[in-house]
């Protein structure tokens, strides 16, 4: 979230799209109700289904699954053509005036630089700005130049007219326009919209681009960086934000730093590439501090072994040949290239697509380690559960180790919520049986490995043997120790650069924040964005003062938010270029003549006067927000509508290029191509989702949740039910090219047939929560049906759009 949960109450319009906050985030949803009560806010829901969010919405519009870019592109077009944008904001705080490389082009669904053989844009050199002789980006403040971002944007989205949108999305034109009106009502400085989205936008082959399109709408309206606005990703797990923060992705290091690629063998070049110079005069480009964060991380990991001489152990870092995301790992496993696999708090057999492929892949492993509090489906993948998991146990030779772990309530620690709050929690119960905290299992494993390396040597023992392991109980690092390590500490007495006689922090003391980090090895910090969470003053995450002095929900003393306890990102943008709040009723941070201050910690150089012209998006080398994503997105700088990989209409109405029907850069493995269905065989668009009564595949193990939602079902509209002779409560079989599931049919008015590209498209809703383990009635794994396709940028599987057929059984 750019903003914070409690800030949603400040919104005038709440758009829920690509998510279902009322069902998947019922506790956070209270702030939407608060906005309605206190602020007379209007709630607008756009979703393939009339959800429980829609049940309390002021307006609902249906949409075909996977067509959100077309919808939002249409909104962009509406805002531009009807002049419903916040002019001063977009001109000063976005790249509207920036000129783009003349070679950059978009033709018939493809951008310049596409390599059809590789199914990738391997030449993105034209996706850049024009640079002047001074090295800075050339701009046109009049925004008349046809190569300026504004003109290119306008041209690109002029194609998304209401009838085109309606034709692709199936949203009736009048309903689409009504949604546009609600959104456009926040284009002035006195009204603000927030967007709440979740996996309904993420889990598509073009998911990242959908989210970008949403962000672009918000930028046009001047709704980023202000109270009640923002792009608010509602995270799906209580600590999934913490997972990404700490770099648990194969290409990441903690704090969104990145691992070097296999060609990046030079330390200096590695850092330089990640510490870009400002692209415009007087911009901050905060990532220029990258080396400070990186060196402090390496000092945290390797302690004394990390020195300037060995480039802070740069050579010990793995160098990536390609992303080793989960799809890739299972592809490798499927091809017999993997011997062992650790599932730590992860149930891939249920959570990842194409179960039958996963079953084959897991069976090729020599060993599989499951660390989980529950008996997961993955841990029983080898066992025959009849139709639900029809495997030949005798032929599977994989050894499965099941290591029971504690649940969150059985250990102390912090969880990072969607709003980036690190909230400390205290152990509430002893774990049952032999369950152990993950840290103890991993700690013990490390010590064993280290002993083996010490005794027997090995090809490359250095990173293991030199890992700094200062914990009081080495086999069981405590949450407190780890949290303090993430915050970081001074390794020597830190001297104030401005006044050498002054010592800011003595050696061994906790740091106050990432501003104190150094690139000379004098500081250690396990995750730079967490610096400040456990200072010399103690555990900031454990704070529980919910005082809200400004009455705007910023509650600065409740827990601790990264970065720097900042509740709203880009909050400099809440004030106009002169430093005055756009809306006096919505003051957040402002320039008081000497420095920036206000309700929130300024996301800015605290003493940079407005006249200097530093932009509010200080992490970007441009200093402003980008409509034109340069070369940073895999499928192009402007989001373009592509059909889901499995499309019910077979064509992309936006072009007639067979290579651009679905995302031309989507994550697809060659071997999976025969596993995609067509609308001839599987005519219905399906989407998967969560229900409020359950959490993923966990709570089916809990009796109360099982009582509240006991049995697997799929939702279909009355039209489809009538066509197929299915009555409410009948048992049906839903099949895709990859398998089938059987469940109760719930026939509803809430899913309506849509008119798309001249044909009727029915959608089938598939809740995911069932499996063959747990207390709820045993059911099929919904992801049996989903395709093995990933987003081009994040490799997130396309679980939200695929094709199925449905029959009564």
């Amino acid at each position, binding site marked *: 979230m750019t903003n914070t949960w409690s800030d949603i109450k400040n919104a005038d319009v709440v758009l829920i799209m690509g998510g279902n906050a009322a069902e998947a985030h019922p506790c956070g949803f209270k702030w939407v109700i608060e906005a309605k*009560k206190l602020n007379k806010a209007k709630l607008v829901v756009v979703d393939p289904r*009339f959800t429980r*969010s829609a*049940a309390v919405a002021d307006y609902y519009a249906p949409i075909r699954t996977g067509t959100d870019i077309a919808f939002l592109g249409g909104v962009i077009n509406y805002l531009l053509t009807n002049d419903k944008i916040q002019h001063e904001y977009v001109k000063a705080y976005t790249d509207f005036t920036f000129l783009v490389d003349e070679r950059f082009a978009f033709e018939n669904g493809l951008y310049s630089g596409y390599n059809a053989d590789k199914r990738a844009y391997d030449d993105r050199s034209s996706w850049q700005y024009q640079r002047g002789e001074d090295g800075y980006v050339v701009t046109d403040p009049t925004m008349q130049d046809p190569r300026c971002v504004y003109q290119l944007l306008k041209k690109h989205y002029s194609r998304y007219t209401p009838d085109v949108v309606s034709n692709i999305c199936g949203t009736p034109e009048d309903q689409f326009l009504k949604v546009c009106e609600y959104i456009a009502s926040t284009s002035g400085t006195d009204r603000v919209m927030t967007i709440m989205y979740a996996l309904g936008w993420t889990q598509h082959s073009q998911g990242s681009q959908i989210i970008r399109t949403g962000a672009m709408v918000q930028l046009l309206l001047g709704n980023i960086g202000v109270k009640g606005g923002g792009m608010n990703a509602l995270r799906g797990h209580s600590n999934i934000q913490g997972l990404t923060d700490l770099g648990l992705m194969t290409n990441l290091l903690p704090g969104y730093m990145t691992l070097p690629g296999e060609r990046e063998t030079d330390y200096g070049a590695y850092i330089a590439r990640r510490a870009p110079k400002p692209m415009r005069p007087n911009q901050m480009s905060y990532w220029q501090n990258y080396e400070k964060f990186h060196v402090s991380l390496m000092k945290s990991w390797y302690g004394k072994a990390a020195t300037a001489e060995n480039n802070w152990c740069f050579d010990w870092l793995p160098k990536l040949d390609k992303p080793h995301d989960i799809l890739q790992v299972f592809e490798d496993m499927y091809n017999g290239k993997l011997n062992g696999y650790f599932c730590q708090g992860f149930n891939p057999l249920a959570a990842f697509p194409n179960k039958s492929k996963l079953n084959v892949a897991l069976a090729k492993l020599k060993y599989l380690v499951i660390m989980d509090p529950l008996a997961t489906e993955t841990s029983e993948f080898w066992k025959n559960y009849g139709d639900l998991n029809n495997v030949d146990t005798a032929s599977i030779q994989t050894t499965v180790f099941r290591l029971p772990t504690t649940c969150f309530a059985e250990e102390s620690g912090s969880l990072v919520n969607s709003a980036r709050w690190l909230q400390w929690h205290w152990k509430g119960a002893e774990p049952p049986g032999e369950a152990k905290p993950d840290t103890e299992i991993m700690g013990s494993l490390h010590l064993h490995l280290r002993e083996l390396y010490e005794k027997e040597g090995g090809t490359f023992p250095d990173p293991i043997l030199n890992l700094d392991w200062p914990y009081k109980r080495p086999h069981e690092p405590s949450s407190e120790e780890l949290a303090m390590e993430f915050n970081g500490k001074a390794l020597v007495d830190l001297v104030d650069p401005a006044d050498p006689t002054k010592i800011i922090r003595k050696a061994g003391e906790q740091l106050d924040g990432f501003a104190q980090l150094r690139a000379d090895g004098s500081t250690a910090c396990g995750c730079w964005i967490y610096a400040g969470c456990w200072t010399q003053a103690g555990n900031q995450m454990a704070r529980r003062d919910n005082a809200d002095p400004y009455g705007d929900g910023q509650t600065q003393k409740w827990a601790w938010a990264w970065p720097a306890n900042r509740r709203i990102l880009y909050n400099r943008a809440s004030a106009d270029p002169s430093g005055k709040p756009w809306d006096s009723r919505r003051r957040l941070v402002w320039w008081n003549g000497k420095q920036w201050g206000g309700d929130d910690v300024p996301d800015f150089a605290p003493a940079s006067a407005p006249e200097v012209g530093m932009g509010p998006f200080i992490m970007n080398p441009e200093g402003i927000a980008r409509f034109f994503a340069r070369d940073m997105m895999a499928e192009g700088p402007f989001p373009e509508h592509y059909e889901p990989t499995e499309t019910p209409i077979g064509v992309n109405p936006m072009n007639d290029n067979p290579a651009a029907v679905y995302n031309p850069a989507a994550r697809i493995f060659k071997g999976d191509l025969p596993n995609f269905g067509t609308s001839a065989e599987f005519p219905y668009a399906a989407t998967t989702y969560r229900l409020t009564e359950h959490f993923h595949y966990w709570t089916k193990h809990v009796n109360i949740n099982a009582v509240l939602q006991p049995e697997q079902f799929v939702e279909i509209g009355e039209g489809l039910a009538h066509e197929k002779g299915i009555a409410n409560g009948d048992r049906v079989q839903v099949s895709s090219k990859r398998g089938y599931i059987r469940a109760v049919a719930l026939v509803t008015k809430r899913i309506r047939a849509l008119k798309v590209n001249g044909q009727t498209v029915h959608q089938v809703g598939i809740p995911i929560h069932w499996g063959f383990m747990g207390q709820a009635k045993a059911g099929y794994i919904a992801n049996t049906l989903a395709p093995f396709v990933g987003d081009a940028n994040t490799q997130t599987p396309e679980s939200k759009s695929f094709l199925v057929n449905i029959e009564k059984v």
Partner: protein
Amino acid sequence: MALQSLDIKRRSATTTPSPQVRQTLEVAKLIDVSACIGCKACQAACMEWNDIRDEVGTNVGVYDNPSDLTANQWTVMRFNEVETADGGLEWLIRKDGCMHCEDPGCLKACPAPGAIIQYSNGIVDFHEEHCIGCGYCITGCPFNVPRISKKDGKAYKCTLCSDRVAVGQAPACAKVCPTGAIQFGSKEKMKEYAETRITDLKERGFDNAGLYDPAGVGGTHVMYVLHHADQPGLYNGLPKDPAISPMVSVWKGVTKPLAMAALGAAALGSLFHYVMKGPNEVSKELEDEMEREDERLRAQEKEDVK
């Protein structure tokens, strides 16, 4: 369920006043249907606080689970899909359960002294240790709420967490409701709060928004804010003008003492008839006649023997 003893307004099958020197604030639970997201947190909280668990059931083609109130499920979310005149759709979600009527039909019908109690705060509570399991409360309830347990044959329903309220806590469902759709407080405050919600709903185009506090049962201590207060039936058949059924009133009303009086009169009348008119005996004349005949026959028999 709670064992308060000094603030009992009414007690089932009891003809004399109950202890009521302690006066408590009249409370109410307000369910703002327009803010309810049907998350069932209230159901879960109810199960947890009261330590009741229903069976893991089946899906019968709706989101309502368990699909009905049971002795182990004192509140259930009812989901209703309603098409509007303009072709739109509404998904009306109502938390169903005991309404805690001011004039409770269950209490009126209950034959077991003290099995149903109404406290001065308005809560209608079942005391299952006095319950005989006859089900008359079900017969008396205008909202079809009480359920007989298959396990112990006693009737159960929402207690409005009388045990929590007795010690100044809100009911468990109100405590956990994430959106504040369930509010709890004095009935007066709840009505005031409801007004603000109704105003808001009217501004949003729900011209018939209103409070459901039906007069037919003397008002309730569980009230709803409805978008369509003119059509409560849309909310899973919430009765428009609920009242204790005339059948129940006839059965448990004045006819009771009248019938008792009639039976008493019949018994007493008989006694006094006997006392005043004397028995209906066989006449002496007939008895003598039979006596004579007997003697004659006996004599004849003797001769025959000779």
